[in-house]
């Protein structure tokens, strides 16, 4: 009895152990009886398929759990082959469970023969989804890294602790002009620019000693052709889980083009500075040498007038005097222009636009009254622009006197002045109803030096040139619209001064 008990108890416990193993290992079993064409699935096989324990599978439906395409085709072929060719199989495929989940499974099949005929196919069925996905993920990551390394725009390399190349990428080979094979055989010290050989030592030592993890430095290398290659080297030490240094990962950024273009920029800057110096020098020559000759001429003429008044009473003397005066004016104008161009960092100060206008009107009030000029002005008292007072005075005065000078012959001048804000700018509009300028004809030289467009006794052709220079010197712009016999509108755009 005891034996029986034991014998009945034993299979039970064998069963449960078997179940336990199946469950723990996520391995199920299956068996196809080819005579009866009955398929049996163990509990765990059913679990993997996500069907209930009373589910009864059959051969056809069981194959249809495999994912359509590669997985289903493969299992169908393997299963058929195992029966017909007596081949066992062990494969990893994907199934779609009853609940619609996609899973990786390992399916093992073994045909069983009786008298050389296949009677059964039995096998194991294992859920390997997590493992497969993880390894696939890892493989993907490795591939990603490999591709990043191989195709990175920057040169990359892995070196062992002795400084031998372990791995190099294409970009690095391209930067240095070597083939992969050549470079692998060339120690990096050999291609380092002699003076730079010691640069990396300290960084490497500090990393090995553990005081730093990473360092960056500029190092020059020598390409196969013998050219200097400027690089920014960024180096990291990789350690294993015990903290022991394993190898260096190095990024080598080619800076040669940047270095080249920055030296070009430096050259340009130097040229410009030299030109500026020459301009200053020129301004100085204008200011001093030309002026001193003019001064002497002027003085001599004065003396002549006082000393020998009889020699000045002719047609020529006044003309000489006039020519000398013009020379003086020209020199002064040239100097004014040079002074504007030479001034560099000018301190701009807030200037009240209305004040400037009132001041200008005051200084030419006689001219306004005499010429019966009508002025219509609308400027808010709280408009401030950034500028230099002397420039603003001269700019405004120049436009007002121009407007009076170039009025229509048969009617008094009429000037309209408006100011309005536009973003961080102030637009000052000065509109005359005078002669106008043919912009088609003169537009491109309107602000040129010594250009006049009207035959007027006081036309010097310098006003607009200086004015434009002065406006630009305070960060402004000038725009013009004009029509012959209708009038001219100048828009002067200044930087607005914001009150705190």
């Amino acid at each position, binding site marked *: 009895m005891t034996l029986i008990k034991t014998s009945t108890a034993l299979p039970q416990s064998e069963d449960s152990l078997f179940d336990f193993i199946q469950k723990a290992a996520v391995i199920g079993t299956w068996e196809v009886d080819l005579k009866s064409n009955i398929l049996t699935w163990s509990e765990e096989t059913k679990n993997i398929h996500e069907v209930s324990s009373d589910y009864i599978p059959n051969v056809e439906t069981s194959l249809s759990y495999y994912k359509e395409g590669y997985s289903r085709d493969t299992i169908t072929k393997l299963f058929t082959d195992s029966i017909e060719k007596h081949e066992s199989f062990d494969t990893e495929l994907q199934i779609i469970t009853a609940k619609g989940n996609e899973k990786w499974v390992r399916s093992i099949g073994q045909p069983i023969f009786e008298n050389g005929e296949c009677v059964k196919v039995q096998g194991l069925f294992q859920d390997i989804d997590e493992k497969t996905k993880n390894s696939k993920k890892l493989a993907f990551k490795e591939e990603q890294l490999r591709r990043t390394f191989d195709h990175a725009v920057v040169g990359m390399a892995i070196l062992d602790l002795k400084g031998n190349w372990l791995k190099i990428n294409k970009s690095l080979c391209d930067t240095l002009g070597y083939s992969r094979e050549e470079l692998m055989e060339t120690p990096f010290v050999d291609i380092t620019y002699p003076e730079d050989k010691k640069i990396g030592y300290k960084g490497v030592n500090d990393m090995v000693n553990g005081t730093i993890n990473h360092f960056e430095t500029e190092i020059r290398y020598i390409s196969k052709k013998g050219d200097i290659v400027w690089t920014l080297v960024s180096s990291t030490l990789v350690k294993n889980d015990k903290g022991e240094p394993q190898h260096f990962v190095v990024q080598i950024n080619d800076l040669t083009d940047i270095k080249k273009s920055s030296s070009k920029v430096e050259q340009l800057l130097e040229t410009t500075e030299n030109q500026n110096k020459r301009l200053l020098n020129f301004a*100085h020559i204008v*200011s*001093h*040498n030309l*002026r*001193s000759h*003019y*001064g*002497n001429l*002027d*003085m*001599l003429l*004065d*003396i002549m007038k*006082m*000393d020998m008044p009889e020699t000045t009473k002719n047609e020529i003397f006044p003309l000489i005097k006039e020519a000398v005066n013009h020379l003086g004016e020209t020199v*002064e104008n040239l*100097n004014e222009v040079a*002074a504007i161009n030479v001034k560099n960092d000018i301190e701009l100060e807030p200037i009240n636009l209305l004040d400037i206008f009132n001041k200008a009107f005051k200084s030419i009030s006689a001219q306004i009254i005499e010429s019966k000029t009508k002025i219509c002005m609308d400027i808010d008292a709280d408009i401030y622009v950034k500028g230099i007072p002397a420039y603003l005075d001269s700019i405004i005065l120049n436009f007002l006197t121009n407007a009076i000078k170039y009025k229509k012959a048969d009617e008094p001048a009429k000037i309209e002045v408006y100011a309005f804000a536009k973003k961080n700018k102030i637009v000052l509009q000065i509109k005359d109803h005078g002669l106008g300028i043919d912009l088609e004809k003169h537009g491109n030289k309107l602000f040129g030096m010594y250009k006049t467009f009207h035959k007027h006794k006081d036309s010097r052709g310098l006003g607009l040139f200086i004015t434009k220079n002065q406006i630009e010197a305070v960060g402004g712009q000038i725009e013009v619209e004009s029509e012959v016999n209708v009038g001219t509108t100048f828009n002067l755009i200044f930087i607005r001064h914001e009150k705190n």
Partner: protein
Amino acid sequence: MKKIDIACIVDDDPIFIFGAKRIMQLADFCNSFMIFKDGKEAIDNLKPIVLSGQNIPEVILLDINMPIMDGWQFLDEFTKIETKQKQKILIYIVSSSIDPADKNRVKNYQNVSNFVVKPINIETLKRISEEVLDDLEQ
């Protein structure tokens, strides 16, 4: 009316010297002149005069741009002369330069009265004369 006794011109430009002398005569600016063609010549000659205290010019018209020793160097040397006499010498910079930097530089020199831009004329000289005489009376 009082008149400046000795006026000194330091300038390398013979035309200016000729003209300035003539205008001074016409303006009845002074009794006599002292003319030096550069800063070095001026300092070498003026130093003993100032130290002796005799025939000291009341006014010096000083050019800036000159060979050998320019106006600024002259001023630096001139201020170093130590005199017991307290006779004042007014110095006017007379230059063709209209460079504001030069005008500003004048402010660094206490003994420079003013900056006169060439050309000079009778009016300028009369103004200088008045200033010099006013100063002498004080």
